[in-house]
């Protein structure tokens, strides 16, 4: 049973990661920085519970706030560039953050052992859940409570006028400007909300794996973050969830028996899925 709980935890965290890219994609921006915000949230929340002894909930909240703040700060200069230039700019930022964590040492002695981030070795012993005697099932419920709240909030946001404005910007920036939409404000807010969701997801990730390191937040993760909403479609948040389940449960776990063939089939199935459902797994068929 623990295996399935563990799988549900992975799905939950990756859903948050995908949703952070979803909200940014609605405005037509392709950001490869989502893994960096995810990592910033992970390190922030981990350090707060391990080094400062915070309770997990405020620590996760702080991770989300720091993720949002960073995304907002990155958003202003980065969103002045468009298309491929933005991809490159956010990629550079993401790699910068990863290399920062690669070199980041901040260890303090606690009960005879040193804890905290240690450069390339990573940040071990983020043991809030085991120390407080949480079972895997309880952790899963805890994670999914956050995921469901985040999904509900984004679903509501999407249906509100703000969602329509984000989509309008994504479709035609010139027209959106001409009907009075402040492009900078819209893009930076989308980026900020995305940063908050990624930061929250990162904080949760740090605590269920108990060990994070720079390579957990590399370009591959950033690509996954983007792939979920694209594969799932931008109609609504459930597309992203469906894509995460498709990739994490069906492709990665379901095909485990195939050994090395899995990676080959993995790519082929994504291409097949995108050909059969060009608007995403949950995409509305559009004109």
């Amino acid at each position, binding site marked *: 049973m623990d295996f399935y709980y563990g799988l549900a935890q992975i799905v939950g965290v990756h859903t948050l990661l995908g949703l952070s890219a979803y909200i940014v994609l609605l405005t037509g921006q392709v950001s490869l920085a989502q893994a960096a915000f995810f990592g910033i949230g992970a390190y922030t929340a981990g350090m707060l519970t391990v080094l400062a002894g915070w309770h997990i909930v405020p620590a996760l909240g702080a991770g989300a706030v720091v993720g949002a703040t960073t995304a907002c700060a990155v958003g202003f200069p980065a969103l002045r560039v468009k298309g491929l230039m933005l991809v490159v700019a956010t990629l550079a930022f993401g790699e910068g953050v990863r290399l920062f964590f690669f070199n980041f040492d901040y260890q303090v002695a606690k009960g005879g052992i040193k804890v905290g981030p240690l450069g390339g070795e990573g940040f071990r012993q983020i043991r809030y859940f085991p120390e407080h005697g949480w079972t895997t099932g309880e952790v899963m419920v805890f994670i999914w409570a956050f995921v469901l709240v985040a999904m509900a909030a984004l679903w509501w946001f999407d249906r509100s*006028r703000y969602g*329509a*404005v984000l*989509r*309008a910007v994504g*479709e*035609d920036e*010139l*027209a*959106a*400007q*001409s*009907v*009075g*939409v*402040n*492009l900078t404000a819209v893009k930076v807010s989308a980026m900020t909300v995305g940063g908050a969701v990624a930061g929250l997801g990162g904080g949760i990730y740090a605590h269920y794996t108990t060990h994070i390191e720079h390579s957990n937040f590399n370009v591959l993760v950033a690509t996954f973050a983007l792939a979920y909403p694209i594969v799932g479609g931008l109609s609504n948040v459930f597309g992203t969830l469906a894509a995460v389940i498709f990739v994490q449960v069906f492709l990665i776990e379901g095909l485990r028996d195939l050994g090395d063939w899995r990676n080959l089939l993995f790519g082929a199935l994504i291409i097949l899925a995108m050909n059969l459902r060009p608007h995403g797994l949950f995409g509305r068929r*559009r*004109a």
Partner: protein
Amino acid sequence: MLELKGAARHFGGVRAVDDLDLKVAQGEIVGLIGPNGSGKSTAVNIITGLLPLTAGEIYYQGQPLSRVPTHRRLQLGIARTFQNIRLFGQLSVWQNLWVAQNSPSDRARRGFLSRWLGGQKGVRAEIAELLEFAGLAARQDELAANLSFGEQRRLELARALAAKPKLLLLDEPAAGMNHEEIGQLRERILRLRSRGITIVLVEHVMELVMGVTDRIAVLNFGQKIAEGSPAAIQNDPLVKKAYLGGA
């Protein structure tokens, strides 16, 4: 209401609009005509701020505009339609109007408190009225991309009106329309004038321009070559030369 003083927009060596002076008074319908490439659309783009000025200044209600970004100009009351239709195709007709409600009163209404005090009702009523005006009430839930060409043109007009503009810039609204549709458009333009909206009409279709405008300015190679009443413009030798060529 609107005044361009020596307004210019150059693209490298190309002077798309050069040293243009134009005054539009409150409540007027001014036509802006000229052969293809004469700078009419560029003129609209510099007035709305999509293109920055190379030289000169634009005044709106006495206030210089050149440092005001496009979305702020809309909030001041300057709205436009596009020559090549630019709707939000994957949004519904209703949503297209919804996102365009950005006048100061709309923005005030979106405040947290006023929303609970019935602001949403006003939003719906205004959108319903716009749909009625554009003859799109039956199509409100359709994706804008699925509308016919004529319907899309009407939605563009309604979307520009959603922000309650004082000055409306119409960039070739009759392009591709048949005789009957032009008649309907003409009627709509006159209805807007009766509501007190000032209109700048950029148009090739003389049937429309000559029928509704109070005054016409003619552009050629980015410069104004004539200005006057529709009747005077029709008989102006410079205008004939610009359109027909020859000596």
